[in-house]
Each structure stands twice: as C-alpha cells, then as structure tokens.
C-alpha cells in the first residue's frame, strides 16, 4: 500500500474520533449559504422583490382583488339577475350591477388577500413545512374553496327554500350559479395562492399571467357571460301579447274594498251583533264566504294575488320590498343574493326600499281593463308606485306617508308620481292630517291612514264618474291590532287579548262609518266587494282580535245573491270574479276561478263565462327617475310597508 494512503487513513480515523465535527461542518456551510431551507429563501425570505414583504403583499392583494372582484362581480350580477326574475330590467342595469359588485368585491378581496398574505408570511416563518410545493398548495386550496362554496351555497339554498323541488327551473338555476361560483372560486383561489407563493418568492403575478389557471379564469368568465346571455335569450322570450278577445261590457261597475285584518268568524260575530250598521246590513243582504289561501302570508304578496288572480310564482311579489343600491338607481328584490343584501345593508351600501309597480309581473285587474279602454280608480294598493301613467286615477301607497313627512317638516309636498293624474295630487296635497304618531296615539294615527285613503278614493271617484272598477286598500285594522299587541312583544295575556278584541271592534265601527259614503254611493246595479286578509299569524304567534286562519269576502249589489255558503273562496278567485262581472274573460293562466255561485243563475246564463289563453305579461320597466328620500323610507317603515 502507498505510504500516503496509510497516512490518509490514519488521519481520517483520527478525525472520525473527534466529537462535534459534523456539527461544525454543517454550521460553517450554513454561513456560506448552503443547507439553507429554500422555503425561507423563496417563499418567505429575501427574494421577495425590491419593495420588501409588505410591498409584495400589497401588490398581490391588489392584483388578486381585481381578478377576484371582476369575476365574482359579474357572476353575482348574473346570479341576481336570474334569481330576481325581471327585477333588474334588462342588460344595462345588470351590467351596471356587475360593475358595482366588481368594485365592491375588488375592495373586499384585496383587503382579504392582504390579510391572508400577511398571515401566510408570518406563519410561513414558523411553519415552513406548510409550504412544500406551489402547485400542490394552490390546487388543494382551490379544491377547498370550491367545496366551501358548494356547501355554503347548498345550505343557503336549503335554508331559504326547504320545500323547493330539486328539478324546478329555479333550483337548476340556483345550482348552476352555485356550481359556477364554486368553479370560479376554485380557480381564483388557485391563482391567488400560486401568485402569492410566487410573489413571496420574488416573482410577480405576471409569472402566472400566461399560465393555464389564468387562461382558465378568463375562459370561465367569458363562458359565464355567454351562458347567461344564452339562457336569457332562450328562457325569456319577449313578453307575450294578450290573446285577442272582445270586452263585453255588462254595465256593472265594481268597487273593491280591501281590509287588512278581519277573519270570517270576526265578521260573523260583529255583524250579527250589529257593530257597524252599514257592513252589518251588507252582511245580511249579500253573499258572504270565508276567503283563504294557506300558502300566502306576506301582505304585498296576498294583495297582489287579489289584484291579479295569480300566485307569487307568476306575479313575482314575494316580500315587502327590495333594496335600492345607493347611487345606481337600481332596485332589486329582497331576500336573494347569498346573504349579500344583508351585508350590503350592514355596510350602508344599500337601503330597504318599498315595493314598486314594475316588480309586479302579471297584469292586475286595472291593467286588463286599461287594455280595452276601461277606466279604473285605485287607492293605496301595494306596489302601485310610481303613478306615471294610469287609465283612470291612481293614488299610490306612497302618497299618505309623503303627506305625513310634509306635515311633520312643514314643507309643501313635491310631486313625485305618487298620484295620477297630477291634478288629483294637487288636490290631495292640501289634505289636512292630524299627524298623530303611532307611538303616541295608535288609534288616531291608524284612523288617519284609513281616513285619508277613503277620502282620496272619494275625491278620485268624484273626478271619474264612469269608472268600471275602483279599489281601495285599508290597512288600519291590522295596524291597530298590531300596535295594541306591541308587535309580538311579550306573552298574550287574557287582559291584553280582551283589549285587542275590544280595540278591533272599536276600529271596525270606525271603518264602518268611514265606508258609509262608499257603500251608499254604489247604484243598484253596482257591486261592492269587501275582501279581508286574515293576517295569518306566523308560527308561534297567538291568534287574537280579528286575526285568524281565514278572511272573508262580502259581496253585495247587482246580480249578487244573498247567501252564506260553507265553501271557501280563494284569494286568487277575486280577480277573475271581478273580471267576469265587468264582462272580461278569465285568463287560463290565472290560478283562481270566477266564483259564479255568487250570482243569480239568470245572470250567469245570460253571461256565460269566457276564457282566453293569456292577458300577456307586463314588461319590466327600467328604474324610474324618481327615488325615495330617506324621510319617506323611515315613514314607510313605521307604517309597516317594509317589514
């Protein structure tokens, strides 16, 4: 053996025996940049760009914010447009909404992303092993985000509408939107996480700008828009034209008095004891039947069904109102949007707004009549604003609150299409109110409300002596009872129930006096129809006063025969029955029927009921130029129009 080899081997053996050599080797290598965990170097540490970690994080937050904001803004607008029927009124408002939500989401995403970046940066220093491979982390993050959105979206849908059929078109739309959001969320998360890790490693988002994920992002975005546009074109044909038919006037005019509150039992009780002579007389000489529709609970929905003869699935009114997006003039239905609206409300970006006429998707009685040139007069009906045009006269549900605001502030009320025609507005604008506050004087305040409605009704009728149909909505009974109960505050004691029962009778007598000129005004061939909504109590709420399971319909005059049959009528029967009386056919789309049992057989024989396929659809109108001022919104809220 070479003596040099012996020497080397001996030296090696000596070295092996020295303790701590390996540690020293390792330590000294580290000082020269070896054995440096690259996760420190590439994800957390030094190579994060010129501006430092914070600048890198700000940059990625801004970029991801824009990408995420644009995507979710567009998808949200598409989803809301689809879910809210024709509520948005076409492409332009939807585009406006998309831009709006894009801005909101961009800010939100950027802020969130910044927080995530900073957390990851901080965590990454401690838990380096969390970050092992960019693609894997990004992919798993994307899958996680998709699952989260799917679970959340499904639960949201389930909670909102547990009875919904899974195969209904609406459910399919919702699932498509949820799936779209899940895919989009997954892609965005993947891009965001990849970009975040890359940026922390010294690259910028452009490193992935040409990557598959980004391409996929734009493809999905584009596909969403194309699918949306395609589904709109396919599913939403132009509003159907009404079927052709002749109006065969009967010479009868119909007056519809709508009383919110009041059950069939209550009517029976008060009329038999002759509380309120006028209505008691009608009760004894007219046709009286219970009126109900167990599926309908919400006031605007109930009264729109009465006016249209169709359920909420066709007329589209499902809630008390919607929301107005500040600064956009956009109005959207309430209770859609993945909890988004509540967030917008909480953030002060939108405010509750009452129902509008353009959200009613099916023609009401007065719309059908207008199609044949017949005049109507309507006062205080739900969702009747704006009164920008009307065939007859219209006093919308916003006139009274406007007068209240005016009386409270001492300012002359300005015309904002609360009444049609304007001359009637000018007349009503001078109407004197007592301006009683609901909290101080519930009876006075409520009476004021109904008194104004009936007065406005009579003023209108005086100006239009040849109306075929007139209707007035009187919310007082329900409002007064609620004020006595305190809107569900506390348990309903026997004493309180007695107070409410007595209060209901007292108010009934007031209503009776109020309606006397209306009832007296009707000629012998005219029909007066008094309809009540029972104010179906919600689950857990007690039945009291005039509230209960079933309302009533009381009809007098003309060909109506007296009778108190056991059979019930449905809310949707009211409109086809009125149309029949006026000489109009019933539309086969209507959920209700003309209640021929109300009338003399001879009359029915002479006027056989007719049917047509459709009265067409009301075309959604774009948002008007009038908006609701805050004081009016507060007033409407206090009157129960927004809840």
């Amino acid at each position, binding site marked *: 053996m070479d003596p040099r080899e012996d020497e080397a081997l001996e030296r090696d053996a000596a070295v092996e025996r*020295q303790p701590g050599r390996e540690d020293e080797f390792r330590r000294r290598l580290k000082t020269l940049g070896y054995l440096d965990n690259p996760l420190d170097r*590439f994800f957390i540490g030094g190579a994060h760009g010129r501006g430092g970690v914070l600048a890198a994080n700000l940059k990625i937050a801004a970029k991801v914010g824009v990408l995420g904001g644009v995507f979710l803004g567009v998808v949200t607008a598409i989803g809301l447009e689809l879910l809210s029927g024709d509520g948005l009124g076409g492409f332009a408002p939807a585009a406006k909404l998309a831009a709006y939500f894009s801005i909101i989401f961009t800010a939100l995403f950027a802020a969130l992303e910044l927080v995530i970046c900073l957390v990851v940066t901080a965590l990454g220093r401690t838990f380096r092993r969390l970050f092992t491979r960019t*693609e894997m982390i990004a992919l798993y993050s994307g899958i996680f985000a998709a699952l989260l959105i799917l679970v959340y979206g499904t639960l949201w849908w389930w909670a909102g509408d547990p009875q919904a059929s899974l195969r209904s078109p609406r459910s399919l739309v919702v699932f498509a939107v949820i799936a779209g959001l899940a895919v989009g969320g997954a892609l965005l998360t993947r891009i965001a996480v990849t970009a975040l890790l890359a940026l922390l490693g010294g*690259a910028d988002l452009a490193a992935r700008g040409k990557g598959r994920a980004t391409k996929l992002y734009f493809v999905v975005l584009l596909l969403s828009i194309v699918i949306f546009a395609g589904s709109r074109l396919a599913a939403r044909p132009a509003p159907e034209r009404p079927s052709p038919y002749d109006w065969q006037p009967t010479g009868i005019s119909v007056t519809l008095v709508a009383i919110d509150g009041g059950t069939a039992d209550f009517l029976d009780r008060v009329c038999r004891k002759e509380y309120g002579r006028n209505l008691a007389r009608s009760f004894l000489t007219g046709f009286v039947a219970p009126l109900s529709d167990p599926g309908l609970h919400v006031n605007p929905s109930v009264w729109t069904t009465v006016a249209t003869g169709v359920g909420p699935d066709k007329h589209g009114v499902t809630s008390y109102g919607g929301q107005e997006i500040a600064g956009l003039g956009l109005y959207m239905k309430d209770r859609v949007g993945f909890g988004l609206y509540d967030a917008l409300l909480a953030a002060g970006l939108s405010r509750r707004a009452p129902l509008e006429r353009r959200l009613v998707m099916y023609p009401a009685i007065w719309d059908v009549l207008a199609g044949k040139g017949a005049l109507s007069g309507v006062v205080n009906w739900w969702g009747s604003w704006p009164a920008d045009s009307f065939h007859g006269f219209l006093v919308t549900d916003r006139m009274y609150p406007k007068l209240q605001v005016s009386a409270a502030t001492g300012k002359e009320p300005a015309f904002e299409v609360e009444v049609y025609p304007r001359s009637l507005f000018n007349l009503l604008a001078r109407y004197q109110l007592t301006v009683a506050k609901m909290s101080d004087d519930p009876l006075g305040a409520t009476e004021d409300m109904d008194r104004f409605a009936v007065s406005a009704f009579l003023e209108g009728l005086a100006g239009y002596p040849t109306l075929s149909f007139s209707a007035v909505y009187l919310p007082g009974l329900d409002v007064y009872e609620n004020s006595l109960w305190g809107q569900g505050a506390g348990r309903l004691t026997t004493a309180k129930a007695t107070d409410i029962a007595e209060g209901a009778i007292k108010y009934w007598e007031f209503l009776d006096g109020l309606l006397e000129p209306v009832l007296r005004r009707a000629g012998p061939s005219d029909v007066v129809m008094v309809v009540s909504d029972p104010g179906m109590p919600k689950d857990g709420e007690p039945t009291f006063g005039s509230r209960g399971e079933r309302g009533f319909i009381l009809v007098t005059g003309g060909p109506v025969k007296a009778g108190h049959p056991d059979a019930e009528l449905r809310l949707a029967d009211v409109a086809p029955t009125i149309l029949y009386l006026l000489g109009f056919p019933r539309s086969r789309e209507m959920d209700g029927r003309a209640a021929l049992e109300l009338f003399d057989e001879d009359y029915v024989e002479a006027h056989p009921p007719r049917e047509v396929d459709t009265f067409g659809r009301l075309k959604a109108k774009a948002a008007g130029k009038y908006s609701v001022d805050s004081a009016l919104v507060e007033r409407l809220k206090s009157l129960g129009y927004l809840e």
Partner: protein
Amino acid sequence: MVDNVLRDYVAARRPEIEAVLAAALANHGDARASKIRDAMEYAVMAGGKRLRPILVIATAEALKNRAAGVMKAAAAVEFVHTCSLILDDLPSMDNASMRRGKKALHLAFGEATAILAADALLMEAFGLVAENCIDAGLPAAAAGRAVKVLADSIGPRGMIAGQQADLDAVNREADFETLEYISSHKTGALFSACVEVAAILSRARDFETAALKNYAKNLGLAFQVRDDILDAVGDPGKLGKDVRQDSNRTTFASRFGVEAARNIVRDLCRVAEESLAALPAKSEPLVALARYIAETEE
C-alpha cells in the same frame, strides 16, 4: 426506486445526448483536423454518466420546455466538463493515468494534443450554446446572458479559479473557506451553469431560476463532497478512475471525517430537493438526481 427513476430517465435521454455529442464532434472530412477530432471524440465518447447534460434536460423539462430545445446546450456542458477532466488529468495537475476506465487522454494522444483537444472542446461548447440560443429564437440579451453564464462558470470566476485554488492547496492545510471555494468553483459553478442556461433557454421566471440555482449550489457541493469520499474510500475498479489522489491535500472528508461528510451530502441533497418546491411542477429526474448523489457511492 430512486435509482430506477434516474436510470430510466438517463436511459431514455442518453441516445439523444450521445447523438448530439457525436454530431458535434463529426469530422466532416477534414483530414488535417482528424487527430484533434479523434482526441476530442476519445475524451468525450469514453462514457461517463452524462450527469450535466441530464441536469440541463431535466431542468428544461421541469420548466415545461422540450428536451430538444436544450440539447445543444446539454452537449456544450458535457464538452466543458470533458475539457476540465482532460486538463485535470494532465501531469502538471493531478497527473491521473485513468479516466472513464481508459487511459487518460494525455497518455493516449500526448500532452500537447490533450491541451489542444481541451481548448477545442471549450470553443465548441460556446458555439453550441450560441447555436442553441439562435435555434430557440432567444432575444439577443438573453442569448448573451446564456453565453456569459457559461463563460463565468469556466473562467476566473468559475472552474479555472477553483482549479488554481486547488493546485495552490496541494501539500498544505486548506482552511474551510478555501475548500468551499475550490468546490463551489471547480464543481458547483458548472452545475449552476447547467440549470441557469437551461432556465434561460426555457424562459424561466426569476424565482424559478433562483430556486434552481439553489438546487445546483447544494447539489454541486454534495457532488464534490461525495467525490472526496469516493477518493478516500472508493474502489477504482468500480469508479473507472484512480483513487487516493487527494491524499496530499485537504478535503471535506479528510477534514471532518467520512461519516460526517456522508451525512452532510445527504443534508445538502435534501435541501437541493426542497429547493425544487418553487418550480411549477414536480421534477422526478431532478429529485432522483439529488437522491442518487445522496445515497449512491459508485
């Protein structure tokens, strides 16, 4: 398992590498250049693991580039490596008698021809990198950068500086920093150039290049330390070259012991492997290469 991945990968790529090397060495009928060509061919085609060309190709593929897009650069680094071996074996340097299981080039063709062949291989290498840049349609600045990266890895900032420091360290105790300097320049510099040239040709982002350079840095040192270990304890029959050549100089193995050196090699290879986390996709060959160096002594 790891061995198989690397073996399969090398087996799959090797024919292409050999073909490119052979094509680059072709004489094209010039009789007066036949001796130098033969010498170049003798040195290059004598075998070897083709580790550096593999590194170039695997890097390109890890960056989603095609192998064909870096094949000339792969040949270039093998030429540079072979050049360094020829010079290393010269009597004035290591005075080695065997290389890749054959006589060292200076013993087969004479010292003068060996020096000329080494120079020629170097020039050919630059030509191949330039050609590769042109073929890839690289912008002039990027092409210039690729050539500069290779030049730096060889010249007074790279291998040659490392070799000089190595010569100066003979028969004297080298301190730790000098050992690292020799290693990082003699071996690490070309490893780093392999990944960096491939990254430039693959249009890699900065952070990807940085990650790859970190991989190469740790891998290069691991390779050198492993070389030291093999020189101390290796079997010349298996290695195909002389051993105990380093007995007159300090090495990491002699300074810290063979066992410590083995552990450090494993650690360096693990860190090298972890560096790959920054790449867009997992690169099995690069991982296998790191594990091969960590685990195999042949």
